[in-house]
């Protein structure tokens, strides 16, 4: 038999043209919003104080920190790794920023840059531990979580560092570039960074290798790609996001709080996973992560706005997360 008759045997799946696929993808992405929209609609109906400019900005505002952490850790999780150090690492970066700007009196931009780069340093160390020492990411970043927590207290002398001498710093978060509309800069920054992350993940070599490593690390290495180097880069990248999150939270609170941070990592990872990224690696998207983060903060806000008794809030939160993720999966299964 000759080649043409083999191509005859093409199976249905092989057929669909690129056009149809991208269309479906768009639809998929839109539908992914479904759960979020449903939840949002529900609260808008049941509570008069939910759906209004003020409260919606509140929701977005409260998404910023978790959102930034989630964005960074999305890359790590797609490689099949995990980063537990983002929470306390964020606190440490906040303290660093305080030390640089308040104590050392560096100019704002430098201080901010320094804090972000310090985050990168944390990530770099994680990356080295994971890919050079070959430690399990869980252990490497767990250790870093503890170290960062301790250092934050040490460097800050266990007391908050206040930025009230540098109002410009606080404006980074609560100020509003858009004159009049009091729309917090923090949200703008989150939006910009999310877009950047999206480009990075979908349109660059870095993103391609992120997926590739998570999909089959060994095969990626055999294809002549320096997996170790790229993993270091990816963890460092996540670290930069941590640093930025540290800046944003300290800007919001007008102070670097050395004791905060613990627990943020779980929320961030939850946002990523709710967004459809698999902890097994290879699959995931920035859009998903953003949606995941929004789902969490919309739920928190809505339940508080409805002034549900606090002990019930977690119960409901848990159930809704289950439903949301299940619905999303069912949908994915359904659409061929």
């Amino acid at each position: 038999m000759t080649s043409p008759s083999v191509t005859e045997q093409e199976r249905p799946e092989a057929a669909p043209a690129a056009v149809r696929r991208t269309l479906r993808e768009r639809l998929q992405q839109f539908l992914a919003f479904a759960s979020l929209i449903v939840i949002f609609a529900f609260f808008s109906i049941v509570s008069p104080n939910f759906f209004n400019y003020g409260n919606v900005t509140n929701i977005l505002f409260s998404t910023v920190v978790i959102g930034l952490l989630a964005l960074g850790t999305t890359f790590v999780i797609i490689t099949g790794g995990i980063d537990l150090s983002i929470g306390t690492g964020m606190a440490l970066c906040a303290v660093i920023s305080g030390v640089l700007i308040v104590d050392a009196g560096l100019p704002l931009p430098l201080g901010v840059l320094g804090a972000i780069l310090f985050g990168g340093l944390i990530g770099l160390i994680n990356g080295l531990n994971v890919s050079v020492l070959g430690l399990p990411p869980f252990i490497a970043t767990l250790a870093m979580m503890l170290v960062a927590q301790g250092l934050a207290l040490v460097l800050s002398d266990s007391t908050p560092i206040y930025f009230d001498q540098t109002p410009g710093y606080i404006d980074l978060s609560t100020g509003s570039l858009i004159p009049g509309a009091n729309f917090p800069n923090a949200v703008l920054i989150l939006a910009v960074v999310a877009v950047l992350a999206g480009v990075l993940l979908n349109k660059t070599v870095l993103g391609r290798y992120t997926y590739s490593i998570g999909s089959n690390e060994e095969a990626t290495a055999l294809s002549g790609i320096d997996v170790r180097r790229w993993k270091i880069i990816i963890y460092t990248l996540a670290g930069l996001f941590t640093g930025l999150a540290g800046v944003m939270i300290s800007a919001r609170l007008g102070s670097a709080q050395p004791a905060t941070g613990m627990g943020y990592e779980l929320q961030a990872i939850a946002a990523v996973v709710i967004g459809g990224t698999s902890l097994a690696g290879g699959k995931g998207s920035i859009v998903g992560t953003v949606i995941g983060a929004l789902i969490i903060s919309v739920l928190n806000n809505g339940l508080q706005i409805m002034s549900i008794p606090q002990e019930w809030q977690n119960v409901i939160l848990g159930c809704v997360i289950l439903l949301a993720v299940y619905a999303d999966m069912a949908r994915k299964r359904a659409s061929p």
Partner: protein
Amino acid sequence: MSEPLLLEARGVGKSFPGVRALQDMHIELRRGEVLALVGENGAGKSTLMKLLSGIYTPDEGEFFLDGRPLQVSGPKHALEQGISIIHQEFNLMPDLTVAQNIFIGREPRSAGFFLGERTLNARAKELIDRLHLPLDPRQVVGSLTVARQQMVEIAKALSYEAKVLIMDEPTAALNDAEVQVLHDLIRRFRKPDTGVIYISHRMDELKAISDRITVIRDGRYVDTLDTATTSMPEVIARMVGREITSDAEPEGVRPDRETVLSVRGLSTKALLKDVSFELQEGEILGFAGLMGAGRTEVARALVGADPVESGTITLRGELIRITNPAEAAKHRIGYLSEDRKHLGLLLDQDVNANVVLSSIRDLFQSFGFVRSKAMRAKTNELVTSLRIKTPSIDQTVKNLSGGNQQKVVIAKWLVKDCDVLIFDEPTRGIDVGAKEEIYRLLNELAAQGKSIIMISSELPEVLRMSHRIVVMSEGRITGRLSAEEATQESVMHFATLRPDSSDGAAEDSATKAGAR
């Protein structure tokens, strides 16, 4: 020869804990030739190739490329030196598309960092078309069948435009038609200054494609023969150290058997349309067809691994519903998958754990406690009877050679005593000697009254084993042949039959074929 050899290995040795994989091995690849490398499972073929491609470093010995000494420091370096390899086990990223897999690490970029996805897909399309491969650049590799994944590997390897192309059992997952395609590709690839090392257990194709054949046994060099002037039996004799009679006939073909399993109108969303057939007690029913014909899907649907849209399954007269393989197992129906790495083995568990996996509960437990002595005894028994080459039954399966891994999968189903066994590509990657062994075992099972469905892409194998043959094309059954009706031609006729015409047509054409 005046000009230096393209590639040469001298006195190469490599050991693994408890295993001497290679010793004093040498191999000579001339310019413009296809050199076949043959040897039993575990002989050391893949290890040699892994040394050449820099995955392992040799304990001793040296390599020469174009007469110049060559130390391969790693996969990347090997590629840079112009050595491209298709490994026996796939090395693909299931979550990436065909195009992304082919050009991984060589993506067209702008500003060195941003991906040119359009160009990427265009290039992939261009390559795929040039190679006449039935692939869609944008398809996610994880959703492809084994055969198509193999094609992606081939396309990837060829895309490097290498000097030396190494293929480790590239056709194990292919059927004759696709083998032809691959051979055409190789012929086109071969140029005066390139060379191919070709590993295969399919003797028939060696004649077709190779210029010379190097035989190795137990990690040692045996001989190199000119294909033209050698007969396959000679090669085989050199390889296994004894004669193998491979032109046997199906055994114990009888029409008067009672029906064990009867499948009616089986259909799935994905592919299958109205598949009906009977399986009789003690018979071996061969399933033939081109890749994508749907044989695997029939098997998967039968054991409940994939959802069924419609159709009935009757076991010994009673209607049964099977929604997952566990239920199939309860009905004593077992399925050996064609994809040993992903669906067959626990790669990081030891041989023992793999062999007993499916039968612990029936055979090796009392009150939930495992009887490890009995297990180990049974496993050892199979390791000897299948001649599985392993230092011990505690060896991690990942460390076994491909063929020996396949034997482990088979052993798993030989231990569990099923009434109906579905073997999907059972001899994939198994050497000729061992194949005969497995054929013998299958015949024994049949003789014991077990009913066997044998899906195979190696037509000679189907013809040699099957009491009856079902031929599929594009998800339908296009022909049913008895052992004596069945010939290469008749099977191929139905395999390539477009089932657009009604099933009736397929039926009567079947009778026509019978008449022929």
